């Protein structure tokens, strides 16, 4: 597999933007200690633009860097899940031709199905199972944690991720968008 230069740069810059968004751009949701995080919406956006490999790598690099710089420690179980979620959402890249500026009802539906599946499997199943295997934590606790994280991400991506993609699609030129003046 040969990554082209643009994808490599997209992974690098994307990871930096994710880090900044994760650190600064979060909205207090009203529930204490719970913020609505735009970073995952951005990860989903990037995955649709650049594909599954970019999605997985941005998820991986970012989660590892965020953990390391904020907590001084890396939770590999959740890092792996971030990479997984990025990769699965990235699979939607083949089905959504965002570069042609097409992002209507059908594409919004496709995007959201992919992201819901990715988050549900990733946070609802993979993260708790890895936590049990690695850290032997009680299953009730990790499944609840996973469910809360997954649900929060699904909602954020559904709202903010869709907005990002729609705005991006508007900036692309549609083929056949010119009409002949009579």
């Amino acid at each position: 597999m040969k990554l082209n230069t643009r994808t490599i740069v997209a992974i690098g810059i994307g990871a930096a933007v994710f880090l900044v968004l994760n650190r600064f751009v979060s909205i207090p949701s009203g529930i204490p200690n719970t913020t609505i995080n735009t970073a995952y919406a951005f990860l989903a956006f990037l995955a649709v633009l650049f594909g599954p490999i970019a999605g997985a790598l941005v998820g991986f690099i970012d989660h590892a860097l965020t953990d390391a710089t904020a907590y001084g420690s890396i939770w590999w179980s959740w890092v792996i899940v971030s990479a997984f979620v990025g990769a699965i959402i990235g699979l939607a890249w083949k089905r959504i031709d965002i570069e042609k500026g097409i992002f209507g009802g059908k594409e919004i539906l496709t995007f959201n199905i992919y992201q819901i599946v990715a988050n549900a499997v990733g946070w609802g199943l993979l993260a708790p199972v890895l936590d049990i295997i690695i850290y032997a934590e009680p299953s009730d606790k990790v499944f609840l944690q996973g469910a809360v994280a997954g649900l929060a991400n699904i909602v954020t991506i559904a709202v903010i991720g869709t907005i990002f993609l729609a705005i991006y699609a508007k900036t692309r030129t549609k083929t056949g968008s010119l009409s002949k003046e009579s």
Partner: protein
Amino acid sequence: MSSVKMLSYIKRDTPVHNLCGVTKLVVFLAWTIVCMLSYDTRVLLVTLCFSLIIFKLARIRWREVRFVLAFIGFFLLLNDVAIYIFSPEEGVNIYGTRHVLFQFSSRYTVTKEQLFYLFNVTLKYLTVVPVALLFLITTDPSEFAASLSGIGITYRISYAVSITLRYIADIQNDFHNISQAQQARGVDLSKNVSLKKRISGIASIAVPLIFSSLERIDLISNAMDLRGFGKHKIRTWYSARPFKTADYIVLAGMVLFVLVGLYVTFHDGERFFNPFVP
């Protein structure tokens, strides 16, 4: 907002700083893997002692890491409380015996096993911290990409990581400019406005940031293509350092450490150290 602290490289001249980046990366990875696999109290305690010694050796000052340690201490406390609330007898399940010390209610008992289990969970999380901190503080970011490709990761991916590290500061600058410009125009992100307003406020900051970054991606990738990036199978790194005697010694020590650690943990077929079985 600019007061948010991030851990980063601190330049010093110590034996730890002078090790080759590849060595440090390998040690860091091996260390975290042992800490993830093992649940053996003895292995974890010895590991923690070792990492504190290296900490001393790298001459990292207390105030440089204090804020992270406070943060992680709080997090671990919260995690222990959550585990206890969800499963007050998890330790009993794991160690197979039950020594009740006292009880709050019929569900919330306090057993020796549970206390020992919580101690182990905390220890397990804690053991990784000094090494991760050490790695972050003593590795020059520009050498890090060279180290990644040194352990066999393709240079394309190493280069992506290197771009990330290089551009975090620039993007943070962009973010501050955009954020201040939008706030000057009346965007409010505080709790004083409705959730809907906050979301649209966030979008008004995030969207320009994302689009300026997409432009940056095109700019940088064009520049790299023009300079022939990706033409060859391998590339060399300006900041790569050659292996020295110290590196070989550290790596050999690490191999020994991993083997002993895993042997002690798994020799009885269990990853838990059980002091309750007579």
